[in-house]
C-alpha cells in the first residue's frame, strides 16, 4: 500500500477492483465503511458478485482477465474529457518528457520485440536528453513525442464500444464508473484503489496495477490522504515477506539479487545504482551502495572487509536471463532437475497451479522438508490420491512448527506498519518456531562444513550467526536489531551542523546514516529506524495520538520507510508546498520545514529551484512514470487475452496473449484456448472462512462447519442450460485436470456478451485438499495452468477455461 | 355369610377394576405432576418428587400409562356407555341430584351422567394424550400444531380435572355404597336397584334362567 488501512476512510471514491475486500480483508472494510459513512462512493468491479459487492454502492461485473481493457478505457475517458489534474500531471509525472523518436507501438507490439526470446530489447524505450543528460520536456504536453501524447494515442484505441465488447461490461456501466471515478481528478478530491490477488494472479498482473497507477497519476491521487494504490495484503504477511525478500530476484529491502555476469561488487553496484543529471531529482537510490554494503556487513560481520568486497563473491548468483520462480522451480523439479525442497508454511500440492504437475514433480525429489503446524497435502503427497508409495523414493521430513501466536516478533501489515507482538502461548509438544528450526539447522550445517568443507564453504563458514540467547534459542530481538542495523566502528557524523559520535555496536538511527565503507551493518535498510538509538523498539509503540486527524497515528508501531505513513506525500502539495486539499493536509511546507506526516525527504518543495526537490524521490527522475520502461511488456500497458480464453483473436491487435510471458512446455502443460471442449471462463479464489490452501483452517472445526467442501459457483442461466441442480455434485475439468464438487447455483454469476457471443463464467475456491476433510474434495489447482506474469511470475489463477458436467 | 352374599351383587370384575384404577391413578398422577409443572407456586410437588426434571419424565410416563388404560377402558366400557334415548330424560332431570324427581328412567348399567363422564374422559383423554405426544416432540410437527397442542393440553386438563372432582365426589361420599364397586367389586342389591335397576333385573333374569 502506498497509503495504509485507516487512510481508506479519507477517500471520496473507492474503487475496489481485483479484490474481494469484505471477504478477505474484513478489517480493511471497516475503514471502507467509515468512508461510506462520510459520503464516499464505493464501487466494485469484479467478475463475481461477492460479499464485497453486497456492501458497495454498486457492482459492475467484467470478464475475468480484461482489467487492462477496462482501465485503458478509463484512461481514454480521462484524457478525452480532460478530467486529469493538469498541474499534477505536468509537474509530478513524466508526461512532458520527450520519448525517443524510434520508440513505436504497432499492432500490439512495442519496438524491439524478439519473438524467439519472447522478450524486448528496450533500447528505444528511452527519453530524449538535453546536453546535460537531462530529459527534454514540453510542459504544454502538446509535442507529439511527449509521453502524454503517446499515452493519448495508445489509449485512444480503447473506445467504449471496444472495451465493452472485450470486457462484457455494458457501455452504460463503463461510463458510470469512468465518470464517477475520474471526478476525483479535482484537486480536493481523493480516489483510491484497492486490489489484491484479483489483479496479481494474471499473466498481465503487474501491468494491470500499472494501468491503475497511470490513472491515479492522471487524477493526482498519489501521495494524498484517501488516495494511492492499495494492495490489500493479509494474514499471509505478504507485505512482511516481500519486504524481507521472499521473491527470488530480491534481497532484503528490495535490493537486487546479483547475477553471474556481475562478477565484482563494483560491477554490481554500477548496474544497480541509478544516476541522474537533473539536480532537482533526489534520486534517493543513489544511496544503493550504502544499503547493499551494510547488508553484506550484516551477513558476514567482521569477515566482510573492503579487501574482500565485503564478501560479495561469496553470494550465490542467478544465471543471467534465468528465472527461479515457483513456476520454474516445479517445472525443473518435474523434469528431475531438483533434488531437495524446503516447504515451510506452504502447501504447494494444493496451492500451486497445475496440481498434477506439482504432485508428480514432488515424486522426483530425493528429500522434502516441511515445517508446518499441521500435516498437509505436500508433506503427505506420497500417499495421496494417485500416488503409489512403493514407487516413491522421496524422503519426507515434517517438522512441527510453532504457530504465529506462539512466538514473539514483528508482523507487517499492508500499510507497511511493522508491529511487534508478543508470544501468547507456548507451542505444543516438540514444536518450535521456524526461526529456531533455521538456527539449529544452520548450526549443524556450519559444523559439517567446518569439519568436511565443501563447495563455496566460505559463504557458510563466514556467515555471522549470533542470534541465540543463553539457552541456545533464537533471540528474536537480536535478529530485529541486526535488521535495523549497527555501527561497526566508532563514527562521527555531522547531522544538521552538529557533530555527533556514534559508538561501535550501537544501533543505527536511520538508513540515511548507512555507509558503504563497512562502518555500518544493516539487515534490511527499509527497516532501519525501527529501533531508536537508545534501543527503543519502535515497532512495539502503541501511542494513539493522531495530530493530523487523518488517522496517521505516528506513534503506533513503526512504518517503513522512516515511519512515513503515506509515501510520495510531497505530491499532496503544489510546487510551493501548499496542500492541494486544505481539509485533508498530509503535509504542508511552512517556509522552513514540512509539517504533518514524515515527508519524503527534508528538502523544500520543487518551486525552490536551488534546494527544492521533485516529490517522487525514489524515482530516478524524481517524477512518477506514466511512461514506465521497467516493465517487461512495454512502457504502456496493453490488453492481451489470458493464456486460455474464449476468444481466438484479441479484438485490439493480432497479439492474442501477453507476448512476453514464458510458456512451459512439458507434457502436462496443456492449453485449450477458445476450445469447444472447455467453453466456460473459470476463476478461482479463496473464501472468508478459509485461509489460502486451507491447510490451517480446514482443521478448525468451526470454520469447516461454515465452508465444509469444495463448490463451484454457476449462474442460473448456465445451470439451467446444463440441467444442474443447486447442491448437486458436478465435475469441473480443464485441459490439465478435473475436480468434483458441489454446484452452487446462484444469481450472482451472469453471462457476458463478448464479441457478440454469450460467455459464461464459473468460479471455485481453492481452499480444499484430500488430506482433510476426507469428503471435501481436492485441489482446485488441478484445473489451473502453470503460467505467470511476465514480470513477477505470479501464477495465473484467475482466468482459464473449463467445462462443467453433471455426475 | 350366605345372607351377605345374597344381599350383595358383583358389579365389576377384577380386570375392570384394575383398568379403572390404572386410569384413575395415572390420571391423578398426571394431574398432580402436571399441576406441579404448570404452577411454579406449587413447587412442593417437584420438591416432593425429586425435582422438576424427574417430574417431567414421571408426567410423560404416567401419561403413557394413562393412554393405554384409556384405550383399554374405551374398548371395555364403550358398549355400556353407549347413549340411549332414556338418557335424555335422565339428564333433563339432573339425574335427581339437584332437585327432587320421581320419574327418573330406570338406568341400565351406567346412568347418563356416568356415560357423559366416560365420554368426556375418552374425548379429552384422547386429546390430552395426543397433544401430549406432540409436546413430547414438538419440533416434529408443524409449528401451529405444536403451539395449539399446548393450549389443548391445558384445556383438556381443565376439563378432565374438573370432571375428576365430580367423579370423585359422586363415587365416594356423594353416593354412599358406590366406592366398593371399584374396591371389592361387590355392591348391595339395594344399591344396584337404585343405580342400575335394569342391569340388575336383566342379570337376575339371566341367572334364574341358567
Amino acid at each position, binding site marked *: 500500500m502506498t497509503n495504509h488501512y485507516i487512510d481508506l476512510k479519507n477517500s471520496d471514491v473507492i474503487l475496489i477492483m481485483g479484490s474481494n475486500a469484505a471477504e478477505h480483508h474484513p478489517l480493511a472494510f471497516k475503514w471502507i*465503511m467509515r468512508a461510506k459513512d462520510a459520503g464516499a462512493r464505493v464501487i466494485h468491479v469484479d467478475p463475481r458478485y461477492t460479499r464485497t*459487492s453486497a456492501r458497495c454502492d454498486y457492482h459492475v461485473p467484467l470478464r475475468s482477465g480484461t482489467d487492462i481493457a477496462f482501465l485503458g478505457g478509463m484512461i481514454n475517458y480521462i484524457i478525452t474529457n480532460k478530467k486529469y489534474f493538469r498541474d499534477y500531471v505536468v509537474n509530478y509525472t513524466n508526461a512532458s518528457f520527450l520519448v525517443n523518436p524510434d520508440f513505436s507501438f504497432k499492432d500490439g507490439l512495442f519496438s524491439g520485440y524478439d519473438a524467439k526470446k519472447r522478450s524486448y530489447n528496450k533500447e528505444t524505450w528511452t527519453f530524449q536528453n538535453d546536453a546535460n543528460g537531462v530529459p527534454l520536456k514540453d510542459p504544454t504536453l502538446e509535442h507529439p513525442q511527449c509521453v502524454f501524447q503517446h499515452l493519448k494515442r495508445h489509449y485512444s484505441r480503447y473506445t467504449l464500444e471496444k472495451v465493452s465488447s472485450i470486457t462484457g461490461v455494458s457501455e452504460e456501466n463503463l461510463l458510470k464508473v469512468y465518470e464517477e471515478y475520474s471526478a476525483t481528478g479535482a484537486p480536493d478530491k481523493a480516489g483510491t484503489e484497492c486490489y489484491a490477488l484479483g489483479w496479481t494472479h494474471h499473466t498481465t498482473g503487474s501491468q494491470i496495477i500499472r494501468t491503475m497507477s497511470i490513472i491515479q497519476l492522471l487524477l493526482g491521487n498519489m501521495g494524498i490522504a484517501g488516495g494511492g494504490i492499495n494492495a490489500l495484503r493479509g494474514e499471509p504477511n505478504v507485505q512482511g515477506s516481500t519486504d524481507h525478500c521472499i521473491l527470488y530476484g530480491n534481497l532484503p529491502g528490495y535490493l537486487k539479487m546479483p547475477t553471474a555476469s556481475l562478477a565484482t561488487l563494483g560491477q554490481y553496484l554500477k548496474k544497480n545504482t541509478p544516476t541522474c543529471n537533473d539536480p532537482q531529482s533526489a534520486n534517493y537510490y543513489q544511496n544503493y551502495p550504502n544499503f547493499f554494503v551494510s547488508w553484506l556487513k550484516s551477513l558476514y560481520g567482521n569477515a566482510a572487509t573492503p579487501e574482500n568486497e565485503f564478501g560479495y563473491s561469496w553470494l550465490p548468483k542467478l544465471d543471467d536471463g534465468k528465472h527461479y520462480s515457483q513456476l520454474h522451480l516445479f517445472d525443473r523439479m518435474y523434469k528431475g532437475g531438483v533434488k531437495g525442497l524446503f516447504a515451510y508454511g506452504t502447501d504447494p500440492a494444493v496451492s500451486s497451479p497445475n496440481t498434477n504437475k506439482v504432485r508428480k514433480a514432488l515424486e522426483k525429489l530425493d528429500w522434502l522438508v516441511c515445517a508446518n503446524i499441521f500435516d498437509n497435502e505436500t508433506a503427505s503427497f506420497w500417499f495421496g490420491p494417485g500416488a503409489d508409495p512403493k514407487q516413491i523414493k522421496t524422503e519426507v521430513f515434517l517438522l512441527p512448527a510453532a504457530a504465529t501466536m506462539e512466538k514473539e516478533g514483528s508482523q507487517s501489515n499492508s500499510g507497511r506498519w511493522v508491529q511487534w507482538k508478543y508470544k501468547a502461548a507456548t507451542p505444543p509438544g516438540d514444536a518450535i518456531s521456524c526461526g529456531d528450526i533455521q538456527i539449529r539447522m544452520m548450526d549443524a550445517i556450519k559444523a559439517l562444513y567446518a569439519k568436511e568443507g565443501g563447495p563455496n564453504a566460505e559463504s557458510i563458514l563466514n556467515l555471522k550467526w549470533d542470534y541465540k540467547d543463553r539457552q541456545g534459542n533464537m533471540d528474536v530481538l537480536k535478529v530485529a536489531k541486526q535488521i535495523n542495523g549497527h555501527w561497526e566502528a566508532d563514527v562521527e557524523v555531522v547531522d544538521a551542523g552538529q557533530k555527533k559520535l556514534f559508538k561501535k555496536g550501537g544501533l543505527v538511527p536511520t538508513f540515511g546514516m548507512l555507509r558503504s565503507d563497512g562502518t555500518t551493518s544493516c539487515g534490511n535498510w527499509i527497516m532501519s529506524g525501527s529501533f531508536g538509538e537508545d534501543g527503543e523498539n519502535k515497532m512495539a509503540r502503541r501511542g494513539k495520538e493522531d495530530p493530523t486527524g487523518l488517522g496517521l497515528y505516528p506513534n503506533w508501531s513503526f512504518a517503513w520507510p522512516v515511519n512515513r505513513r503515506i509515501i510520495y506525500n510531497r505530491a499532496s502539495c503544489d510546487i510551493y508546498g501548499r496542500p492541494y486539499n486544505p481539509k485533508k493536509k498530509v503535509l504542508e511546507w511552512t517556509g522552513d520545514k514540512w509539517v504533518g506526516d514524515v515527508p519524503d525527504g527534508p528538502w523544500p518543495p520543487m518551486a525552490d529551484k536551488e534546494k527544492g526537490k521533485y516529490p517522487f524521490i525514489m524515482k530516478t527522475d524524481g517524477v512518477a512514470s506514466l511512461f514506465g520502461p521497467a516493465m517487461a511488456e512495454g512502457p504502456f500497458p496493453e490488453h492481451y487475452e489470458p493464456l486460455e480464453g474464449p476468444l481466438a483473436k484479441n479484438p485490439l491487435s493480432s497479439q492474442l496473449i501477453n507476448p512476453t510471458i514464458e510458456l512451459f512446455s512439458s507434457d502436462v502443460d496443456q492449453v485449450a484456448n477458445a476450445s469447444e471442449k472447455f467453453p466456460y471462463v473459470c476463476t478461482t479464489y479463496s473464501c472468508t472462512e478459509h485461509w489460502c490452501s486451507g491447510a490451517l483452517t480446514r482443521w478448525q*472445526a468451526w470454520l469447516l462447519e461454515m*465452508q465444509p467442501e469444495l463448490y463451484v459457483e454457476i449462474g442460473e442461466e448456465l445451470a439451467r442450460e446444463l440441467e444442474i441442480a443447486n447442491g448437486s455434485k458436478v465435475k469441473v475439468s480443464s485441459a490439465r485436470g478435473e475436480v468434483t464438487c*458441489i454446484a452452487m447455483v446462484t*444469481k450472482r454469476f451472469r453471462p457476458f456478451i463478448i464479441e457478440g457471443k454469450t460467455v459464461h463464467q464459473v468460479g471455485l475456491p481453492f481452499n480444499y485438499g484430500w488430506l482433510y476433510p476426507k469428503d471435501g474434495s481436492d485441489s482446485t489447482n488441478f484445473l489451473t495452468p502453470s503460467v505467470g506474469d511476465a514480470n513477477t511470475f505470479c501464477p495465473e489463477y484467475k482466468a482459464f477455461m473449463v467445462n462443467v458436467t453433471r455426475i | 355369610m350366605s345372607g351377605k352374599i345374597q344381599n350383595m351383587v358383583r358389579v365389576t370384575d377384577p380386570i375392570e377394576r384394575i383398568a379403572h384404577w390404572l386410569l384413575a391413578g395415572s390420571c391423578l398422577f398426571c394431574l398432580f405432576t402436571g399441576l406441579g409443572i404448570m404452577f411454579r407456586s406449587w413447587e412442593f410437588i417437584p420438591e416432593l418428587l425429586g425435582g422438576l426434571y424427574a417430574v417431567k419424565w414421571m408426567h410423560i410416563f404416567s401419561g403413557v400409562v394413562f393412554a393405554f388404560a384409556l384405550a383399554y377402558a374405551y374398548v371395555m366400557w364403550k358398549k355400556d356407555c353407549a347413549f340411549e334415548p332414556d338418557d335424555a330424560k335422565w339428564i333433563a332431570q339432573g339425574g335427581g341430584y339437584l332437585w327432587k324427581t320421581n320419574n327418573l328412567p330406570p338406568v341400565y348399567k351406567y346412568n347418563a351422567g356416568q356415560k357423559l363422564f366416560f365420554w368426556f374422559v375418552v374425548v379429552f383423554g384422547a386429546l390430552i394424550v395426543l397433544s401430549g405426544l406432540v409436546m413430547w416432540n414438538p419440533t416434529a410437527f408443524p409449528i401451529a400444531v405444536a403451539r395449539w397442542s399446548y*393450549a389443548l393440553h391445558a384445556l383438556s386438563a381443565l376439563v378432565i380435572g374438573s370432571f375428576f*372432582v365430580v367423579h370423585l365426589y359422586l363415587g365416594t*361420599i356423594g353416593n354412599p355404597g358406590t366406592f366398593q364397586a371399584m374396591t371389592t367389586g361387590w355392591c348391595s342389591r*339395594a344399591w344396584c336397584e337404585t343405580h342400575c335397576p335394569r342391569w340388575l333385573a336383566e342379570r337376575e333374569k339371566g341367572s334364574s334362567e341358567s
Partner: protein
Amino acid sequence: MKKTEYIKLIDTTRCTACRGCQVACKQWNEMPASRTRNFGSYQNPPDLQWNTWTLIRFQEHVDKNGDFKWLFRKDGCMHCTEAACIKVCPSGALYHTEFGTVGINQKLCIGCKACISACPFDIPRFNQETEKVYKCDLCYDRLKGGQQPACVLSCPTSAITIGEREAMIDKAYRRLDQLGGKGVVYGDKFVGGTHVMYILSEDPAVYDKLPVKPRIPASVILWKNLFKPFTLIGMGAVAGMAALHYLIKGPHEVHEKKEGDE
C-alpha cells in the same frame, strides 16, 4: 438497583457476512461444531442449532425494481420484553436479566421444549443428549463483567453494536435517516420491544424466517392466561359445588327396599 436495559443493534446494511460473529459466539460459549455439507449456499449450518446460537442467513433477492441484492441477516434470539419463552417456561430456566435481556439457566432447564414452539422467532434449540434447550443469552456473563458480547466485539464493520436502550433506538433511527429512509427499523414495535434490533434494508417480509408481526402466539395466551388459571379455578369451583351439594342435598342415599315390600 437501577436497571440498565441494553439493546444490541444489528445493522444489516453494514454486515459483510464475514461470520466473525458466528464463530466468536461459538468460541466464547465453547460450543462444538457440527459436520455439515455444502447444500448450495454459503449459509452453514443450514439453521440455528443447539450449538449454533447465531447464524448469518444468506439470501439472494431481486427487488421490485429488478435489482439484485444479496441479503445477510444475523439470526438469533431477539430478547423480547414480552418473551413467550419465559411465559411458557415451567422451570424458571428462562428469565429476564437485569439488562432486560433473556437469560437461560441450563441447570434449571428440564427440556420440556415448551419455549421452542412458543417463541415467535423460532429461536430455542434442543439438545437430545443433554436434554436441555440452548439459545443466545446476549452474553450475560460478559455483560455482567462490563464486556461487550463476543459477537459485538468480533464485528469488523460495526454492524453489531450494543448500548443503552434509548440511545440505541435513537441510533437506529438516525442511521435510517442516513440511509435516506431506505430501510426499516425492526424490533421496537412488538412484543414489548426486543433487546436485539435490526436495521433492515428491505421490507421485513422479504427476509427468510423473519416474522413480519411477531407476537406471543394466541395459543400461548389462551393457555397461560385462560386455561392455566381456570384449571385451578375449575377444579376448585367443582369441588366447592360438590361440597355445597353435600351440605344442601346430602349424600344420595340408597333407599333400601324393606324385606317384604314386594
